Structure formats: C-alpha cells, structure tokens
C-alpha cells in the first residue's frame, strides 16, 4: 500500500502540504443477547483520507475507491486553487518506517467458531442465575493497519490489534435492580485464560449491590480505584491539555503557563503513545510524527500539553504528536493516547488506613469533564476506620478539576492501565477513538458524592 502511495508522487505538486492516510480495519463483533446468538459481523473497511493545506486553509476528502486516489487528489487540489500540473524534476528521498506488531497468538486470529465456543462458556457460567435479566455477552476485535505518506518525505506503516470480551446484565431481587458491566481487553488469547474465573468473582460481587443503600449526598473523603483514576486523568485533565482549545485565547495560554503549580506535588500525569501493550498505542500520529512520552503534570507542576503541528506552531511549543483521527473518514485533531497517573509510594492498605469515614469508588460506568468533572460510579464501598466495609450505591462523583487536583493527598504504589475496544474517547463529532487510561489508587480529601 505504501508503494501505491509513493506512486502518486505527491511531492511533485506545488502545494504547501499534502498527506494521504490509508487505513484498513478488520472489525469483528459477535454478541449473544437473552441467551441466543443475536449478531455476527466481520468486515474489511478500506479507505483513504487526503489532506491539502494551501492558502492558509485545509481541504479534506475521504474515499473508499483507492483506484481513484489520484483523481480525488486532483479534485481536492482544484478546490484549493492549486495546479494539478506536476514538476517532474522535483525529487524526494522518503524516510520510510514499517512497524509490524502482529506476530504471535493474537486473540483476533482465533476462528469465529472458537470465539463463539468461548462466549458460550462464559454464558453458561451465569445464565441460569434466577436473579439475572437481559444478559448480553459480546466479543469485539479491532485490527488496524495504517499507511501514511506526505509531500515532505515521511512515509510509515504500522498495525495493532486488540480484542475485548464484555458482559452486561441486570440483577433483580424484589424491587431492587443492579446494572452490571464487566469487560477485559487483551492482545493475546492467553490473556483471556482467567476470564471466566474473574467474571464469576465479579458476578458474585455484583449481587452485593442489588439492595445496597444509596448514600446521603455530600462531600466525603473518597478513594478512586485505578479505573476511576484513569477516567479522571483522561476526562478531567487530559481534555483540558488538548491545546486546540487554547487557540485564539492568549489569556488562557498565560493562565496555563508551563511551570505553574496546578496540583498537589504527589500528582504526575502522563500521555504516551509508545506503549504497544495498550490501545492508546500510536507510534506515529496522523500527521506523520513519531510518538513520545509527554508529562502533562510532573510533581504538581504543569509541564506540558498536547499538540498537533498547527497548535505547536501557534503556541510556539514542541509538537507532541497528538494528531489523531478515529478512522479514514475523519481528519486528525489533537487527541489523547494512553493517559495515566504515575504511581506513588503507599500500599492500598496504607492509603485507606487514616480514613475514619469515606467512600471507595472501585469501578465506573462512565465519566466526563468540563468545568466540573463527573464520574458515574458502579461498584462503591464505605470506608470505616481504615477498612473497606459495606457496598453502597453512589450515582456520581463530581468536583472542580483544579480543586480536586490539589485535594489529592495520597497515591498508591501500583498502576493499572485499561485499554478500550468497546467504546472510546469522543470529541467534536469523532467517537470512538481508541485510547487507554489508568493509574494507581488515589485519595481525594473532599469530593461531592450523590
């Protein structure tokens, strides 16, 4: 495919910037609903996104007809008032990188029959429970092969694959209902080997929540588990670090000056594209720039923000290679990759020991972040006298982002990262983007719970 892109000789047009990205994805989804196979989908999606920058404006088009790429490019050049005549004397040496990650026993490589057998085993492990309503069990593969070229001489290809199994169900006893969700995302099939045992443990724990009492709304000391911590990192602070929101707002740039103290000193948050074990892996961004690790906050100090080429130039800062698009149908914008809190030095027991009365949010339904952030809790517990005690129902946790960053006063010593295949990040029409997030357990001095 890179040969096809090279054969277009896009460097021969007299244009500020041209780049073309081809993506081939092989999504597969199998789902059982109410005890029977309800969906099986496998398809190959192949398409290209072309960008032209000329006369201080972007021109984009997208197509599934790869045999007509040159025609599409010419149409786009014409829209931008750029000549389609070539300067055939112009030559270029391409800097080409090919990264192939897909060797080994990847879960997506299992046959559809094997995947269905595995899902059936999961179903059989819980479907006859008398409290169960509307069980849904699904498998999803995201397999991506990406090719990129630009008229500056950059060309790359890379691939990645992640698979997930998710279980969604309701439990009902008398008038009480609990909605549960469990999922695991992996690369290799062997990483599903404990799925049923882990799920059964979670299923048994879910039953504790059917008639759990709802908490009295108020402000409480709250411990967030790694999933909630990751969602907080992504939704509350990560999105604010995307610097396209700062364009045209000099006051905000000054307000967000690098070097400013924005959090308690135990807080460090990172966005990284180089970890190939998580779904936020992105060795090159969609503008052809190689990934690296970016500290957003280090020891409580604002140390970086996320950029594409446009925002880096506008703010006179280094590009962090965060230009990403959800698919070949979309243009890249500033987006996160793998965003997480760095670990601290306390064990979980040490973290909760001083808490006389508080709550622990173990798992989460969803989260969002604007001026206030929100975490919709799923499994939560009381903390009493330094111990985790009874399950409770917490609907949401909210807070002001900056206040909460200062209110984090303890961080545990191990981090857990969460990849996403079912769902992903949404921003400006583009959903779902394959990101990952996570962190350790964190303790917040005061959080609004309701």
């Amino acid at each position: 495919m890179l040969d096809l892109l090279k054969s277009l000789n896009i460097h021969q047009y007299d244009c500020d910037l041209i780049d073309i990205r081809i993506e081939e994805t092989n999504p597969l989804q199998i789902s059982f609903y109410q005890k029977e196979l309800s969906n099986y989908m496998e398809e190959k999606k192949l398409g290209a996104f072309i960008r032209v920058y000329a006369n201080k404006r972007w021109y984009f088009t997208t197509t599934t007809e790869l045999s007509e790429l040159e025609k599409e490019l010419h149409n786009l050049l014409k829209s931008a008032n750029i000549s389609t005549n070539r300067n055939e004397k112009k030559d270029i040496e391409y800097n080409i990188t090919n990264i192939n990650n897909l060797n080994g026993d990847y879960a997506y490589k299992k046959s559809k029959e094997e995947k269905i057998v595995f899902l059936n085993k999961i179903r059989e492990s819980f479907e006859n429970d008398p409290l169960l309503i509307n069980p849904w069990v699904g498998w999803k593969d995201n397999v991506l092969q990406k090719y990129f070229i630009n008229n500056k001489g950059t060309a790359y290809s890379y691939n990645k694959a992640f698979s997930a199994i998710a279980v969604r169900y309701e439990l009902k006893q008398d008038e009480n209902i609990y909605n549960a969700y469990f999922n695991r995302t992996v690369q290799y099939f062997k990483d599903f080997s404990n799925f049923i045992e882990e799920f059964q443990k979670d299923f048994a724990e879910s039953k504790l929540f059917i008639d759990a009492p709802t908490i009295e709304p108020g402000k409480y000391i709250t411990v967030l588990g790694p999933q909630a911590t990751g969602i907080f990192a992504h939704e509350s602070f990560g999105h604010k670090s995307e610097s396209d929101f700062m364009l045209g707002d000099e006051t905000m740039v000054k307000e967000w000056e690098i070097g400013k103290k924005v959090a308690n000193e135990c807080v460090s948050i990172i966005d990284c594209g180089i970890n190939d074990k998580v779904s936020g892996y992105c060795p090159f961004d969609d503008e052809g720039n190689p990934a690296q690790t970016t500290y957003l906050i280090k020891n409580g100090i604002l140390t970086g923000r996320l950029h594409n080429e446009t925002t880096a130039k506008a703010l006179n800062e280094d590009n962090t290679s965060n230009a990403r698009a959800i698919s070949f149908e979309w243009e890249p914008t500033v987006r996160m990759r793998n965003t997480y809190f760095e670990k601290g030095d306390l064990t979980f027991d040490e973290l909760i020991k001083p808490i006389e009365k508080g709550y622990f949010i173990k798992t989460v339904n969803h989260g969002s972040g604007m001026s206030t952030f929100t975490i919709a809790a799923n499994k939560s517990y009381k903390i009493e006298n330094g111990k985790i005690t009874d399950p409770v129902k917490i609907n949401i946790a909210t807070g002001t982002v900056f206040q909460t960053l200062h209110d984090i006063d303890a961080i545990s010593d191990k981090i857990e990262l969460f990849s996403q295949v079912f769902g992903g990040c949404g921003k400006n029409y583009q959903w779902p983007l394959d990101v990952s997030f996570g962190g350790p357990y964190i303790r917040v001095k005061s959080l609004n719970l309701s």
Partner: protein
Amino acid sequence: MLKEYYTINNNEIRVQIEDSKIDAIKNKNITYKSVRVFDEEKKILSLASAVGNVPDSELEKKATNLLSLNIPFEYELERDTKGNFKKDKLSIKDSQSLEKFTEKVLNDLKDVSQNFVINGAVYTTRYKKSLKNSLGLDLSSEQTYLVCTLMLKQKGSGNIFDTGAAIYGFDITENQYQNFLNDTKFVTNACLSKEVTLESGKYKILCEDNYLLRKFYSDVMGDEYEEKSSLLTGKLNEKIFHESISINECHNYEKFVTFLPFDDEGIVRKEELVVVDKGVLKSIFYDKKKAKKYGKVSTGNGFRSYNSNPGISPRGFRFIGVEKSAKELIADDLVIIPSISSGGDFLPNGNFSLPIQMAFVFKNGEFIGKAPQITLTGNYLDSFNKDFIAIGKNDILPEALNETLILSNMTVNVN
C-alpha cells in the same frame, strides 16, 4: 432463501471553524451496505456488510456462508410494500453556498467573538437509505439537512468551552436564524454575567425533557418492560405521569431533524405513535424479534446500523397539547434553567444526579445572572408526578432549548 439489501449513502460537505475563522472544508461521500439472507426452513439468518461500493453478489455469497452460525429468527419479513420518501428542501446545496452561510454566521456573531473563541462546524448532509427484499419490499428515503454547532469558549476561561449554540433544520428560515443569533447573544451574555449566590436546597427548575426522560426511554423498551427491569412494567394503560403530560413518538419532526418514515425492518409509519396520553402510558416499543418473542405487534421500531441486526430504538419524542408559554410559568418566581449538562446518570430506581455546567437564574421572569456549578438530584417519576409543576412552550430561548420545557421541583446541590 430470502434476501434483504440495505444501503446508506452519506454525502456531506463540512466547513470547520477554528479560532472564529473558517479553517477547513471537507467533502465526504461514503456508501455503507449490507445483505442479510434468511433461511425460512431452518429459521436462521446471517449478515454481510461493507463500506464502499462492494457488489451485492459478493455480500450475498459471504452472507450465505455465514448461515452456518445459526443466528435464529422467527418473525415474518415485510413484503410487497413500495415507497419513496423525500425531504429535500435545503437551499444550501454546494460548498460555495455553505462557505458563504458560515461566513455570514461568523460575521453576525462578530460581537460575540470579542469575548469568545468560536469553534465548531457547519455541514450539510444528503442522506439516502434504501431497503429492499426478495418479497417485494422496496423502500427508500432521502433527506438533506444543515447543522451548525458552535462551541463558545470565553476568553481566559480555563474551560474547554463555556457555552454552545446550534441551529439545524431541513432548511433554515429567516425567523429561525434570527432566533439563533438572539439566543447565542443571550447565552454568551449570560456567561459574562455575575454569578447568583445560591444555597443548596429545593428550587424550581425549568428544563428540557431530555434531562429527565433518559431512563424513561429504556423503561418503554419492549425487552426491559417484558423482563420486568423497567420501572413501568405492568403499567401499560395506567397513569404514570401528571395528566398534563402527553408524548408522541414522531417519524417526521422538523424541530429535531427527524425523518424516519420506515424502520429498518420495512414497517412504514404514517401516524405518530402515542406513547403517553394525558399521563397514561399507551405504548411500549417493539421490533419484530421482540414482538414475536413477547406475543406483541412490532411498533415499527426495529433500527440498526448497516452492519448489525435490528434492535429496538425509538425515534424523537414530542410533547403535545402544551398550551401555556414557558415565560408565563416563570413570571412570578425564582427559577433555574439548565443550559449545559454533562456526565449525569440515573440509578435503576429512577433517581438521577445531573451536574449542570451552565444554568440561568430568572426571577419574576427576568434574567438575574448565571448559576454557580450545581448538581440536580431527584427521581424522574417524581419529576412528572409529585414534583411536577407545569409544562410550557419554549418562548424563552427558542433555538437554544427544546420546543417544550418542564417546570418541576428538584434538589439543587451547590458544588
């Protein structure tokens, strides 16, 4: 063997706005299609899908091979129905006129951009859908519409955006456009206004129905209702809401740019479906599969993406029989009107928590300032019963908020 062919074509022109200027122009024309085959003897089906102009014969062959997976189906397919439905009145048809429209919007909001950075997009879509089967079903629809959504970020604010503005329609009338400009000026001025001091406690809240009805949407799904996980199970034809609440499900609702004359199983909808009539629950939604399973008739609510089998999904909901004006409802009181909410959730018992990022405070019908960051809590059934006060036509911010607004008592927690 029965065969069904489903094709969607999405032809979009998009003008993107960044930092209050046109930044990009995008063209997109993509076809999505699928073929489903049904083995009537074995009562099994399969689906093959593709993006792009893949020949039907290729998809038929693939789908036939996938029958070995034995995905069950028990229901009858629609047959011998033809129809071609069109809503094509958009005057903006090409990228030049869309660019001109966008420039006009930015020019008309020049004052706003003194204090706010405008980001967003203006796009037109020509959306075509076709559903055919080997039993003589041959339905197609075509619609064109325009959407303009703007995220408005107050300069110097630490927020991603502070407020928003939108205008959309099958065409944009001058009256609608003026309302959009007025509403945008109101919400941006509200952002700049002083914050009203509020204590946590009970307040009158005038809000859009979608804040409250999210749980209701799942409670009226056939599978939730029949499996008793709905709060409304067993209450069909019983009073569930205050008697002044009547809700229809609409296949053709201009305000919400909803045009769905048939569902993805080929059932043509000619009349609006009465969901709640004077507080009494009148309909539960079914697709063909769930209708067969529970001994009911499909309400024509089997919808799907091009690459999946149908599931139950409602179209737009519309409150009917609303006579009072919202201005009338807030004439003599202190009322909070939420404008932006993100991240809220419902518990299975109907209790909700809704964090509000932007709300306006009105006293005796006059705007007095913006609310501080608050979280609204309550129970959606209570909001339409014991906490319900009234329902009114939105004559306060006609483009920025829904057609109707609900006034009810809620608990406000000041964050």
